[in-house]
């Protein structure tokens, strides 16, 4: 029997018995729906991480030099930890030495930061927030646009002026209904003048990126951000941005060589500093993504197994109900494989329809989740294909036993059954 004929028969079967078909397909539908939804969310987060999050946090074509990695997955051994704490801090002179060897057009920025720094203004109560003390081309590298006022001038950076740029939420909190630019804000007891307010950065997984204050590294802010062991010239992170992606790896090599020579490392010794790119920051995300995708596959798998069992049962009932029909078909010349194919196609068609519905609900669910929660969602085209294909495969597997039973029926006995 031609495939189109068998598919038509199967679809007719679904139309005739809508309610039964609905229950038959429930398992597969739910399974595929989960698959699509979970994959969409993982994909959405992934896209966010790759395009947005890393871009905002690190900047494009940018690498960072640190004392030790800022993001770690897995357990750090005590030994590793001790080695890290013995490392020298990155200093301003490192920044100058590196920028001296890198090609023109390269941007650099040094920063240190502290959380829970008490801040107040005459318009609002005290609040503890994150404060960055920065030097170099910080605003350019972070692609931080200023919505109101101006960024810190290089003159202010060099002299350590008492000027700050506020995050959008900070500005709104401390200067409700007044223009913050030109007004005073007190940070850890020192009065600064607000020169600008950054454009709204949005949020990552529900955490606002607009709660920060940026001031010059050489201002008194630096003391606020000091860590135990810091010298007067220590910085936390040195960010370096190459003018093009192509130049980045060479710049990283030059930076590494410069840092090694400044730390007087012998060739056999390992680096005693960390260099990370947005790619390496993403490595940790890839790991999380792996686990999430595993869950995204494992959960639907359970549902699909249940779905397959339901379909198998329904197909066994169908074979029993249609024994007479099978007898007629065999008498008229249907071979075993014709009957086998007919029921396999029916089972596969049923299941594929179920999967198709699952895909539709999954897409809708993803969109709803994306719209109503901080979780981003992006529908991956491959997941749609995978979902539908999964349905077909489940249908075929579930159909094998019932179909082979139908195929083996004795035509004489089958045709007698009414």
């Amino acid at each position, binding site marked *: 029997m*031609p495939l189109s004929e068998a598919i038509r028969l199967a679809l*007719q079967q679904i139309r005739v018995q809508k309610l039964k078909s609905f229950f038959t397909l429930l398992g597969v539908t739910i399974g595929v729906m989960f698959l699509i939804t979970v994959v969409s969310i993982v994909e959405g987060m992934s896209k966010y991480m790759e395009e947005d999050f890393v871009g905002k946090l690190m900047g494009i074509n940018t690498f960072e030099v640190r004392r030790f990695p800022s993001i770690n997955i897995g357990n750090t051994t005590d030994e590793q930890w001790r080695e890290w704490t013995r490392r020298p801090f990155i200093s301003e002179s490192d920044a100058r030495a590196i920028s001296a060897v890198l090609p023109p057009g390269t941007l650099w920025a040094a920063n240190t930061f502290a959380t829970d720094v008490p801040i107040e203004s005459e318009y609002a109560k005290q609040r503890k927030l994150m404060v960055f003390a920065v030097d170099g081309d910080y605003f350019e590298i972070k692609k931080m646009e200023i919505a109101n006022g101006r960024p810190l001038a290089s003159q202010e950076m060099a002299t350590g002026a008492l000027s700050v740029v506020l995050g959008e939420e900070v500005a709104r909190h401390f200067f409700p209904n007044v223009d913050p630019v030109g007004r005073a804000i007190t940070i850890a007891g020192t009065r600064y003048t607000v020169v600008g307010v950054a454009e709204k950065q949005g949020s990552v997984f529900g955490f606002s990126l607009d709660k920060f204050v940026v001031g010059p590294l050489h201002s008194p802010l630096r003391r606020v951000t000091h860590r135990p062991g810091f010298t007067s010239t220590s910085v936390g992170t040195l960010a370096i941005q190459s003018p093009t992606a192509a130049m980045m790896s060479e710049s990283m090599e030059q930076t590494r060589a410069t840092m090694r020579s400044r730390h007087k490392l012998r060739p056999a010794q390992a680096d005693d500093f960390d260099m990370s790119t947005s790619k390496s920051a993403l490595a940790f995300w890839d790991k999380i993504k792996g686990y999430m995708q595993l869950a995204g596959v494992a959960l639907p798998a359970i549902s699909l197994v249940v779905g397959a069992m339901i379909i198998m049962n329904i197909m066994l009932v169908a074979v029993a109900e249609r024994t007479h029909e099978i007898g*007629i*078909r065999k*008498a008229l*010349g249907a071979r075993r494989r014709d009957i086998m194919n007919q029921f396999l196609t029916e089972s596969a068609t049923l299941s594929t329809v179920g999967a198709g519905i699952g895909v539709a609900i999954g897409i809708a669910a993803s969109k709803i989740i994306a719209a109503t929660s901080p979780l981003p969602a992006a529908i991956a085209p491959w997941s749609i294909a995978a979902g539908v294909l999964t349905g077909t495969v489940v249908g075929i597997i579930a159909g094998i036993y019932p179909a082979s039973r139908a195929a083996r029926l004795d035509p004489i006995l089958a045709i007698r059954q009414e």
Partner: protein
Amino acid sequence: MNIDAHESALSTTAERQVVTMDAGATPSEDWVIVTRGIRRDYDMGGEIVHALRGVDVAIKRNEYVAIMGPSGSGKSTLMNVIGCLDTPTAGEYWLNGMLVSSKDDDELARVRNREIGFVFQTFNLLPRATALHNVELPLVYAGVPSAERKQRAMQALERVQLADRMDHRPNELSGGQRQRVAIARALVNTPAILLADEPTGNLDSGTSQEIMRVFEGLAEQGQTVIMVTHEADIAAHARRVVVLRDGRIASDTRREAFAAQIAG
């Protein structure tokens, strides 16, 4: 074709004896069915039932034969064997020059599809399919392309005067019309034999006559017809009547002799 021509197509007892004796030999083209010593045993829970105990039947092309017998005579078993739905325990069965008694399931399905047109007592139409689709079914399994299938099915329905009912489902047709759809389905693949099993068993006498006239017409057009029945007046429509009793052939006579027999 007139009756005389029909009579000449009829096989004689002597001819039949020759062709059924020659074990292993392929019968000549004239013979559409030759069985040699067909036996069929069933194992009914340890007890062996001998449904057929050595049946020799030979039927020439264009013959119109009725197989008769009371229930339990083995006529259904013989019909299943002739229809390639069942394989004999022992003996040879030659259909249209092929030794079908040694074929496997799928080969038998192919033989049923190409060589045999079934007409059943209960019509056995697919209830949810239209008359046209029912008639198309054997062509589906013969691998005939869709357009040709439709055309041939329509022609077959025309042969039984049902062209105007082709979009109807079986439950929208009368018993006689259903049986005519079944006949159209049996004829659509131009089979070597038309094999009818109690074709009038579910029909009233008027409709029965109507169906018998269809068979008559087909036989006159040269179609080999084999009809299994337990009704003597239906069997009397055939040119030749084979009577089965206890799994053996009890008599094999021309219609006239048979008529005399039942009259006497």
